[in-house]
């Protein structure tokens, strides 16, 4: 059978015969062997000699990094995300410091900025996770997740890449807040290692919270996520030990204020910057973060798979 016949057979679907198709396959596999033009030029695409696998640890790492890079690029190019993660927390910190700093420091005798910097760093991390949850919902709705799912990518890379990107964003937000803090009197009085550990706390709690938001975003796509969680976050923002010290709250509220995850993280960060107990609050924060991650990891993974497969 000459190429002429094969060509005609492919172009005209009415006359396709099985022989012509089987004849065509070898031609596709040899990109350099002077392949005949069959129908459309797609036959000229080279077939990779060693196709990258979509399984295994190497693919997991490479694909996760790729997904993280995609999200970070998207966030960096979106002015709204930048405002939300950088400008908004910085301005809030300045406002809190200028407006309330003097009153709080005067009434409690502790420099308020050592509570405010950790608080705003955590709030920035938490609200950033919220914004990312919204973008995840949009990606599920527009079918981008499904699109990734039918490509040869590692199944776990989407979720891992997202958490990685979140981690980078949280460290950057904290860095920016600390820089603004330096301008208004915040200092690392405990040395270099505690200063580095300081950045770990938003990361620790933020990862737990991001898992929680992801689980909520993919498990219950109909829920008014932003409104609901904004409400919770705003409450946590007002009732923590960074806004004013725990003992300034009414006695019946002090138990909640002292033990909610944001306060434990703030107290650890206060200890790591101004000085004070670290181990106790740090252990509490770790328990909160691990608990959030463990409880919501399975729903997050299952929900993500469900969303990616496009089934409601």
């Amino acid at each position, binding site marked *: 059978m000459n190429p002429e016949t094969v060509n005609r057979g492919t172009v005209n679907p009415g006359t396709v015969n099985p022989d012509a198709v089987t004849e065509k396959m070898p031609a596709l596999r040899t990109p350099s062997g002077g392949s005949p033009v069959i129908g459309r030029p797609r036959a000229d695409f080279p077939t990779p000699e060693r196709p990258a696998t979509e399984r295994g640890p190497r693919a997991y790492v490479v694909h996760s990094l790729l997904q993280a890079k995609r999200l970070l690029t998207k966030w960096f190019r979106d*002015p*709204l995300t930048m*405002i*939300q993660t950088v*400008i*908004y927390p910085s*301005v*809030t910190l300045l*406002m*809190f410091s*200028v*407006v*309330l700093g*003097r*009153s*709080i420091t*005067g*009434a*409690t005798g502790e420099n308020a900025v050592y509570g405010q910097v950790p608080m705003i760093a955590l709030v920035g991390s938490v609200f950033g996770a919220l914004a990312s949850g919204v973008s995840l919902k949009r990606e599920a709705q527009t079918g981008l997740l499904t699109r990734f799912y039918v490509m040869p990518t590692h199944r776990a890379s989407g979720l891992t890449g997202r958490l990685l990107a979140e981690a980078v964003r949280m460290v950057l937000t904290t860095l920016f807040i600390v820089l603004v803090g330096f301008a208004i009197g915040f200092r690392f009085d405990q040395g270099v290692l505690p200063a580095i550990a300081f950045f770990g706390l938003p990361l620790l709690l933020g990862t737990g919270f991001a898992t929680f938001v992801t689980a909520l975003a993919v498990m219950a796509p109909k829920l*008014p996520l932003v*409104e609901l969680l904004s*409400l919770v976050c*705003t*409450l946590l*923002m*007002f*009732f923590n030990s960074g*806004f*004013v010290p725990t003992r*300034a*709250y*009414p006695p019946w*509220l002090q138990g909640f204020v002292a033990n909610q995850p944001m306060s434990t993280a703030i107290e650890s960060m206060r200890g790591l910057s101004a000085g004070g107990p670290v181990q106790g609050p740090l252990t509490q924060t770790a328990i909160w973060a691990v608990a959030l991650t463990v409880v919501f990891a399975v729903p997050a993974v299952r929900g993500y798979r469900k969303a990616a497969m496009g089934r409601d």
Partner: protein
Amino acid sequence: MTAAVATTRSSGRHRAPELSSFQQWRALTGRVIASQLRTHELTVALLAPAIFAIGFYLPLRFVMRVQGIDYAQFVMPIIVLQAMAFTAISAASRGAAEELNGINPRFKTMPIGPAVPLLARIGGATFRSALSLIAALFYGYLIGFRFTGGVGPAVLFVTIAMLVGTAFAMGGDAIGVLSRSPEATSQALTLPQLILGMLSTGFVPEEGFPEWIRPFARNQPISQFAHAMRELAEGTVNSAALIPALLWCLAFVVIFAPLSIWANVRRQ
């Protein structure tokens, strides 16, 4: 012959229902309120003041008592003003969304008075402001706020709040309609809300600020509103407190009302 005439007349009446502009406004305002209900905007309007009332009152009560201030009485005006600012931001989002999704341009092609859709959105926003104000005053009563100055000043307190809310809603609507981007608009408006709200004498007295920023904090409009409303609630109001607030109210109406009308009825 007669039948033909009758058909013509009835079909004519069917095609052009003669609603007055007021009836059109009522219908479109109903539409806005129905949409506020559907998107749980009204729930937010009722809940947000609660969060801010207890969110500032409980933590700062102790701090302010040290300075000899009854914080429930002190913070109430700014809680109300915050609620008005939230209404303005949601009005801006709505204006942007309706310009973007095409219903606003669609209204322009229909036999509706040119400013009726605008006035309907403002009507919806005013309705939301009123609900938010009632909710805020309710939470205020729970934490210990009282009108001790009698009915007249209390009415004036509510009037100033509603005027400010309506003027801000008109400004928000104009910005939204001109920007056509709901997310960007609400994000951008959060910043002035935060700055003007916080850098005012609504949350802390002037002495709480560093010296260099006191003139701004004392004289900016939100502080003037908060000061006048606080005095009205206490019944100790005098013209020195009231006149700047009323002038600022007037200024906002004079700026924002024509701006929103221009943004809505101009032809692109």
